[in-house]
């Protein structure tokens, strides 16, 4: 479990609540031994970390928990309620975008006597919920009770770049509750998953619509992810603008302000279209929809679709309503600006120069204040170029992550964390270009150019090739590349 916003369990005094099914018996303690890669020395791993979280049994002899409880896991041990014996578990499905995971236990006897918990509906605001889990501060299961404070879209910290429907409760938040069930009337109405430092009595859980979306997604045996339309809308409440667009004088419709480079969306949607309806939800002029009595961002309506489905939209275009069937697919184009999991970072080491793709995970190696210390070019390349200058966007910008000191590169003056522009005249669009440009040249010197200002460094090719093995051996780099 990471140190992000950790989840908690709301406690509950069960007196009088009448849990006939004793749901606490189906709440699981999860011990995870994990190792994360070092993003600026990608062949290495951080030390093994031991952390704990919570989960609960659902039908099909599976344990539901948060993705962040079991991310980068090397070993997962699960404990039943008041049973000292650990059981080995493994990840069956993991959804990093919505921070959910399903585990299976090698020894199926683990599930003997455990009743799978059933899911309820999206709880009402002001209704009471109880969270169950194994937070820090003790060994036994803990319960906390709170009310549903509000329901809206919130950023999911585990992925870092996705927002989904979230329920806020006033239950206390403690590390270790992550993955535990939030129960109302014997039914699970959420999975506790994150809190917010600095706020008191504020915890968040993943509600049933998101959970059901995940469970339906995996019915085909793999998790595909939440699709994205790639449509950004802005409020359309300026009367003059509405008249300009010949829109009726009502409170419906939000203007399409920008589009992600998704082929279907770019083909079917235009800037200045006014989004009137998404699926069965009318879009209000402030860009929200009324979702089960809660006014939330229209994104929630898009998130009702599964990947591969088409979503019916109604837009206002050129003075009249138009119906569109928009194919919904998963968008991977912003992967580098979210936290990445499961796939080890790619790299290439040549003559002590460590090249790796630019990513949020890499930027975080600069420390907590990385936004302040990173150079402007990296920030621009990572976050803004894709939308500001799409024609010059690179598929996978590459940085000089670090330099393993050796006489062959001892006189380099280019600082690490520099964005690579060209190598031997080849524009670096992705990491494979680095490898190809080094390995294909016959010149006496390698020339590595950086952004900005065309700063460059040179390596004597013969010396670099002669040094390669020694550098790898000296620094314990098992392979010169992971592509």
């Amino acid at each position, binding site marked *: 479990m990471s140190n992000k916003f950790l989840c908690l369990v709301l406690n509950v005094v069960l007196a009088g609540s009448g849990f006939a099914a004793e749901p606490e018996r189906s709440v699981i303690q999860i011990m995870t031994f994990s190792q994360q890669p070092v993003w600026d020395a990608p062949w290495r791993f951080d030390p093994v970390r031991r952390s704990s979280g919570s989960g609960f049994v659902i039908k099909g002899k599976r344990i539901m928990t948060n993705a962040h409880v079991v991310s980068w896991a090397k070993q997962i041990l699960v404990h039943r309620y008041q049973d000292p014996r650990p059981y080995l578990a493994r990840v069956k499905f993991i959804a990093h975008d919505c921070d959910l995971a399903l585990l299976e236990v090698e020894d199926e006897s683990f599930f003997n006597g455990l009743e799978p918990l059933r899911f309820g509906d999206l709880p009402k605001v002001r209704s009471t919920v109880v969270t169950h889990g194994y937070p820090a501060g003790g060994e036994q299961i803990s319960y906390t009770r709170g009310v549903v404070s509000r329901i809206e879209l919130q950023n999911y910290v585990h992925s870092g770049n996705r927002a989904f429907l979230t329920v806020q409760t006033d239950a206390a938040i403690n590390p270790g509750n992550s993955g535990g069930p939030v129960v109302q009337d014997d039914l699970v109405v959420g999975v506790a998953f994150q809190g917010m430092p600095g706020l008191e009595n504020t915890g968040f859980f993943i509600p049933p619509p998101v959970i059901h979306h995940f469970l339906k997604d995996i019915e085909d045996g793999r998790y595909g992810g939440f699709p994205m339309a790639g449509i950004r809308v802005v409020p359309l409440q300026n009367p003059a603008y509405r008249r300009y667009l010949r829109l009726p004088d009502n409170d419906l419709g939000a203007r399409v302000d920008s589009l992600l480079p998704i082929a279907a969306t770019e083909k079917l949607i235009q800037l200045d279209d006014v989004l009137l309806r998404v699926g069965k939800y009318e879009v209000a002029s402030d860009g929200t929809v009324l979702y089960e009595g809660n006014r939330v961002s229209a994104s929630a309506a898009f998130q009702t679709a599964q990947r591969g489905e088409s979503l019916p939209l109604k837009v206002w275009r050129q003075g009249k309503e138009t119906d569109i069937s928009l194919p919904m697919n998963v968008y991977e184009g912003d992967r580098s600006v979210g936290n990445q999991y499961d796939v080890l970072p790619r790299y290439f080491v040549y003559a002590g120069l460590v090249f790796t793709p630019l990513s949020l995970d890499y930027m975080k190696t600069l420390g907590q204040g990385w936004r302040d210390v990173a150079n402007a070019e990296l920030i621009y390349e990572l976050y803004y170029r894709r939308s500001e200058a799409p024609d010059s966007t690179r598929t996978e910008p590459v940085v000089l992550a670090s330099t393993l000191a050796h006489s062959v590169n001892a*006189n380099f*003056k280019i600082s690490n964390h520099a964005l690579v522009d060209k190598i031997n005249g080849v524009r670096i669009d992705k990491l494979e270009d680095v490898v190809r440009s080094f390995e294909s040249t016959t010149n*006496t*010197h390698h*020339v590595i150019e950086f952004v900005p*200002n065309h*700063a*460059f*460094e*040179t390596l004597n090719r013969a010396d670099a090739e002669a040094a390669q093995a020694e550098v790898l051996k000296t620094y314990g780099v098992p392979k010169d590349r992971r592509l």
Partner: protein
Amino acid sequence: MNVRFIHCFAVLLLFGSGPGFGSEAAKKAPGDWERELVSVEVHRKQYDYFQPWTKHVQTVVKAGLLIGPREILTTADGLDNRTLVRLQKGGRGPWWSAGVKWADYPANLAVVTSTDEKFWAGLKPATLAEPVKKEEEIQIIRWRAGNLEVRKAEFSRFTVSHPNMSDAVHVQLELSSEIDGVGWSEPAIAGSKVVGLVFSQCGNQLQVLPSPFIRSILDAQKKGHYKGLGYFDFTWQPAENPETLDYLKLEGEKRGVVVIDVPDKRDTAPVLRPRDILLQVDGFDVDTQGDYVDAGYGHLVLENLSTRNKWAGDPARLKIWRDGRAQDVVYRLPKAEDAARLVPDGGRIGNDALHFDSPTSEVRIQRRSVPPS
């Protein structure tokens, strides 16, 4: 210009006429500075960039030095968007209405004057040191609550940087002192001479405009040669990696720096090209770190050669390595513009509505008020 800095000015900037302009003793008591050091009060507008119609009023009191007939030298910092300038002598007493004769923000220098004859009575000009000697005892002086405050300072180093008001860079003197709250043109003195004006403070470190730099500009102003500071608009990188110089086929000793970026100019073809090796500027050899040896200051970064007795539009003679051979080219220094924050307000009021910022304009000041004396 290939003449060493300290030899460039055989003539001191001081003026030979009037009482008190004669030679001075090698060292004088701090109290002797009471006739040279004055206070400059500046009332100015500060803009609120979120509410541009809102203007806050700020008043700063700076130090000024008499340097010649009716000329008070101070730093330009704080003079932008001014509404009223006044002078006070002796650290107390009446304030005299004044105006800015000229202000040069890239150089961070200004000359203030007053038309009131009474103000000038009893004052005498200061002498700017040439050159600044590291081993001298240096003190910082300023008026404080009517008394002359004198605090010790120690030489730290010479650096090359810009004073945050333009792209121009020039030599600066860095001193260490326990004094606080300075940076408003307080003179740094050594013996009987001024070695610089303090324009910035960070902790115990004081940034000072050195007197030779000041003198070069005052002298050029007097002769009508001054066209503003220039700067090098190309970007270079050190050439400490010998492989880079081999790659660029430089013959002989490893030296010079590599030009990596040259701005596009619509009107003229650039003199320099990326991957040129810059070997010399005005006869000064450039090493692989980008330094040259200055007779007055020692090792300085080559950028200082853009403001070392050179002004915007002046030629700089560069020796470069290109296409396998050394070549001489002439580079014209572009003019350093004021920083964006200094963009003046169109509705300037007060004395300076008389366009005092032009060095060539005639000084016409109307006295606005006379404080009770």
